[in-house]
């Protein structure tokens, strides 16, 4: 059951590559890392708070999804 998934072996970055990345992987990077350049619109939220927001938002949405799916079960 071992599997090494080297999906994009080409060196180039492509738009289709961007589309394949999961939202969780994107948020791992867009919220946790990257250059922090304080903008003029200061959202006075530290990185940790953003992660909390993301977790709350995602978990809420996952739960809502599950509830909907369960509701539809025969």
């Amino acid at each position, binding site marked *: 059951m071992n599997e090494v998934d080297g999906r994009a*072996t080409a060196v180039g970055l492509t738009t289709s590559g961007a589309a394949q*990345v999961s939202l969780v992987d994107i948020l791992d990077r*867009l*919220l946790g890392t990257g*250059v922090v350049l*304080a*903008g003029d*619109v*200061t959202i006075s939220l530290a990185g940790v708070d953003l992660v909390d927001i993301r977790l709350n*938002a995602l978990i809420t949405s996952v739960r809502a999804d599950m509830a909907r799916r369960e509701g539809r079960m025969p």
Partner: protein
Amino acid sequence: MSAPARYVFAVARDLQVAELAGTHGFHGATIDVVEHEGLSAVVCDVDLEEFGEEPLTRNLEDLAWVERVARTHNEVVWMVAAVSTCAPLRLVTVCADDDSVRAKVDSLRSDLEDVLDRIEGRQEWSVKVLVPQRPVAESPRATPAASGADYLRRKREASDRRRDLTEEAVDAAREVHEVAHDHAVASRRLMPQDPRLTGRTETMVLNAAYLVEAQEHEAFTAALHAAGEQHPLVTVEVEGPWPAYSFAVLG
């Protein structure tokens, strides 16, 4: 539309601006490049009714909004990284106007140059090690326990299998990380992703990013493939190349 502001996606060096034709920002906005003494900030107009401080705090609670913005941000960064050395910015960096963008780039110039030096000619790869949540299933010929002693023996064996799996997973994560690290110029461990977010049943025991020389990527993936084969109980996932998000941290 209220006063537009400038959303900053990334700061790049050696950017071929013409290559960004066809790339759009939020709501189809034109991508612009603010040049400043050799560095290029990649920006687009945004409406403060959507990206102002108060709307932002509300919108960040809305997963559909976060996803739309994160995906657009990612796509723009991806295109910029394809045609330049690109330091991606964190999500939702909003400046009043181009002069403000220049002033901010100026204030961080030496740090930005350090980041760009670090990631030039290199790309980020994601490596994850996942372990099945359940212990390895008993053999299919399993029959009901014949006695109390038999039942206890089976329980003990199941517990041993679970322990073996945990040890195997820890060993695998360590070895995979060491192999990846040896083939990379830098590495960064990220938090294992919560199964509630990934929707996967496996437990993530390694979630890491590696900065790899562009021409070394085949050696990198081959080494990880070999490392994965040493640990058949776990799944090793290698994804990339990605823009160097995890290595564009200042300081």
